């Protein structure tokens, strides 16, 4: 028995030692400035998805070769499509699908651990990824929990509720670490609930604050709703991870569509703060400014597309800017210190506006809201843009977006004096899919690559190698010359590229990683 105990102790000690030896050296990445890793959903806080790495460039990209693949084989009803942008921290990749998280060796694709959350069920359309702070990785689950996982062991540290699944809320958003806050968005527009953003304590999970995507009753913005009942059930989910300016200490994110979704007759007005870009103080959860890309939405057009932070020059003046290519087909350039619009212009086919108001918000045409007998609308419900991450390259000065020119017909199905839920939908459709590059200052298209067939979309990565990586509408990962739009390299994968590609460098080797369905593909330049 003594021998057995000694053996077990030795085994235990040796595995602990092995764990200690394999434990990566942790260093604190600078989340404000991307270097050779990919430590947040968007790489850094800016949302540009632009890497300064340049070993893979317009000359060398043809030598890019497959390093490894990693296939997700777990399915607990959550689906296996990887729509998460992996994080690369200290040589380890962290990524998610609904209810599951993995740590994978970024050099070899070897699984370090897999964390399985015992979900109580929820909407599993996707999970956009994790956040890492120190030795903890965080992700949301479809049954509305924020889960903290020890990155050394793959075991849960704690979990905290982020919503009530009974009300059709669910978790899908990649959390963002801002100072001592884990910023959490919420999903779910099946039902008439308000969206919100929460901040949690990274050590304990305790809720620090919650900001609802509506004004408080009695505030001036509350007049954009007919009554408090409509406002307090008015939607505005926070589907996509935000961006952050450390100098201004502002956290930027967009909110989702107003509710009821399609029939807006019982909520006349702009319906703030739905379909709105918001700037919050992350320490207090107080709204500092807002700009509404999509007043009184009736087409399911979220304004949650990544608000990209650009330090640029407009009309000869250095400006701190925020740019969004919005689902409704419009591109907005905003002064991110105060939310004042500098440019509002369509970037895709659209027919639903009567112009732009003095604040820069498009004015919706009532005739192009859903009708009982149908209204032909561009873009369609899937939108000119969607959650797929865009990119901005300071090297080219171009903003890149997967752009869809599309039509569908919007119908009201529920003409009740108090419509609820969806109350209508769009039907059918025609679409033309493109990768579009435009000048961030003017919105003028510099180049456009129309895909030979319509189909799926994927996110975009640009690099200092003057490259743009994205997926096409079939199953190819493609590298473009970011300046000219010429195709330089491609690889056929098992299915559509289902996330935003990333890049990182280890041991002097630059990698590009993208997901296609249930598989991560890593390419490397030797």
């Amino acid at each position, binding site marked *: 028995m003594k021998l057995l105990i000694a053996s077990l102790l030795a085994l235990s000690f040796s595995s602990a030692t092995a764990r200690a030896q394999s434990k990566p050296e942790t260093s604190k990445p600078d989340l404000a400035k991307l270097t050779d890793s990919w430590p947040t959903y968007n790489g850094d806080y800016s949302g540009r998805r632009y890497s300064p790495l340049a070993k893979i460039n317009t000359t060398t990209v043809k030598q890019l070769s497959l390093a490894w693949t990693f296939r997700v084989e777990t399915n607990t009803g959550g689906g296996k499509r990887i729509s998460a942008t992996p994080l690369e921290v200290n040589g380890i990749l962290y990524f998610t699908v609904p209810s599951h998280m993995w740590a994978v060796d970024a050099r070899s694709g070897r699984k370090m651990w897999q964390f399985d959350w015992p979900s109580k069920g929820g909407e599993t359309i996707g999970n956009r990824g994790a956040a890492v702070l120190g030795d903890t990785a965080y992700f949301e689950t479809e049954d509305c929990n924020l889960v903290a996982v020890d990155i050394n062991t793959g075991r849960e540290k704690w979990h905290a509720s982020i919503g009530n699944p009974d009300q059709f809320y669910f978790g899908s958003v990649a959390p963002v670490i801002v100072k001592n806050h884990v910023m959490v968005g919420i999903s779910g527009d099946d039902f008439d609930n308000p969206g919100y953003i929460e901040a949690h304590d990274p050590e304990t999970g305790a809720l620090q604050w919650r900001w609802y995507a509506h004004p408080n009753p009695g505030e001036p913005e509350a007049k954009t709703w007919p009554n408090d009942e409509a406002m307090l059930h008015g939607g505005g989910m926070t589907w996509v991870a935000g961006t952050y300016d450390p100098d201004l200490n502002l956290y930027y994110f967009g909110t989702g569509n107003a509710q009821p979704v399609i029939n807006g007759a019982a909520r006349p007005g702009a319906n703030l703060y739905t379909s709105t870009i918001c700037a919050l103080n992350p320490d207090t959860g107080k709204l500092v400014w807002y700009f509404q890309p999509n007043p009184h939405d009736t087409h399911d057009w979220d304004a949650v597309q990544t608000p990209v932070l650009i330090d640029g020059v407009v009309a000869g003046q250095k400006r701190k800017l925020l740019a969004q290519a919005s689902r409704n087909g419009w591109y907005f350039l905003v002064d991110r210190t105060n939310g004042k619009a500098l440019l509002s212009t369509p970037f895709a086919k659209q027919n639903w506006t009567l112009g732009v108001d003095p604040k820069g918000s498009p004015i919706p045409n009532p005739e192009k809201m859903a009708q009982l007998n149908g209204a032909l609308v561009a873009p369609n419900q899937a939108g000119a843009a969607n959650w797929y991450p865009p990119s901005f390259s300071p090297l080219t000065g171009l903003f890149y977006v997967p752009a869809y020119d599309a039509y569908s017909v919007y119908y009201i199905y529920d003409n009740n004096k108090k419509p*609820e839920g969806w109350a209508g939908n769009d039907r059918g459709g025609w679409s033309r899919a493109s990768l579009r590059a435009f000048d961030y200052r003017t919105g003028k298209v510099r180049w456009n690559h129309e895909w030979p067939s319509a189909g799926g979309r994927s996110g975009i990565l640009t690099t200092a190698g003057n490259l743009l990586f994205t997926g096409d509408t079939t199953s190819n990962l493609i590298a473009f010359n970011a300046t000219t739009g010429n195709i330089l390299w491609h690889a056929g994968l098992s299915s559509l590229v289902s996330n935003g590609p990333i890049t990182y460098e280890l041991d002097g080797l630059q990698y590009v990683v993208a997901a296609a369905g249930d598989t991560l593909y890593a390419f490397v330049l030797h």
Partner: protein
Amino acid sequence: MKKRFLEFAHATFLLCLIAVPLRAQFPHSTVDPASAERGSKSYASSCARCHGDDARGTATAPDLLRSLAVLHDRRQMLYGKELGPLLTTGPNHNFKFDEKQLADLSQFLTASINGILRSGYNAQPTNLLSGDAKAGEAYFNGAGGCSKCHSTTGDFAGLAKRYSPSALQQKFLFPNYGLFIRRKVQVTVKLPSGKSYSGDLVRIDDFTVALNEKSGEYRSFNRTAGTIVTTVDPFAAHVALLDKYTDADIHNLTTYLVTLK
């Protein structure tokens, strides 16, 4: 964890036993139509006076579709077990429903909630004949250019007998959309050698193209330098109209086409 697993297994077992006559809704709260129908009668006689015919509330009583208690009952599939005490002891409530009546009421409310979800609607618009048939006929023969390819006594004879108004409208707006497209995009691939192949387009991207020849033979090609690929969308004229239609054109044309019986 074990308890949680057993609860899950138990719930799963119960779920498997229940017939699923209606499409399951997220998060999988199924409804037995017969039970919901019985519940609707209980609701009409006991609840509708205050909560409204459609359970969406009135000036005197709250919206039950947005009630946290009802939403909890629905998601957890409690069949009214936790609603019962509220209906007995809540303010202005003194209803003593038995277990079966509570389950029926729960099923009615669950069905009412499921019905307003994205997937809850019967996606068939029903108010499509508000247009002017004469104006639609004029559009068909004039500005729309429809009569250049279609004939009301030829391919469109008896059209309205074959399609519902909603299907008709979708077919002329988006004939290339959906699973049962009859006419495929035609593709011709001309190789550097001068040889050429044509047929139904199967797949195309920037690097390869595949087609089915008339003979049924499948061919695929790399789009190498000098290879010329030409596609023809048989519905291109319909696509071109999307930029030109007014909604009135669409409503008028639908109303006219429905007269072709």
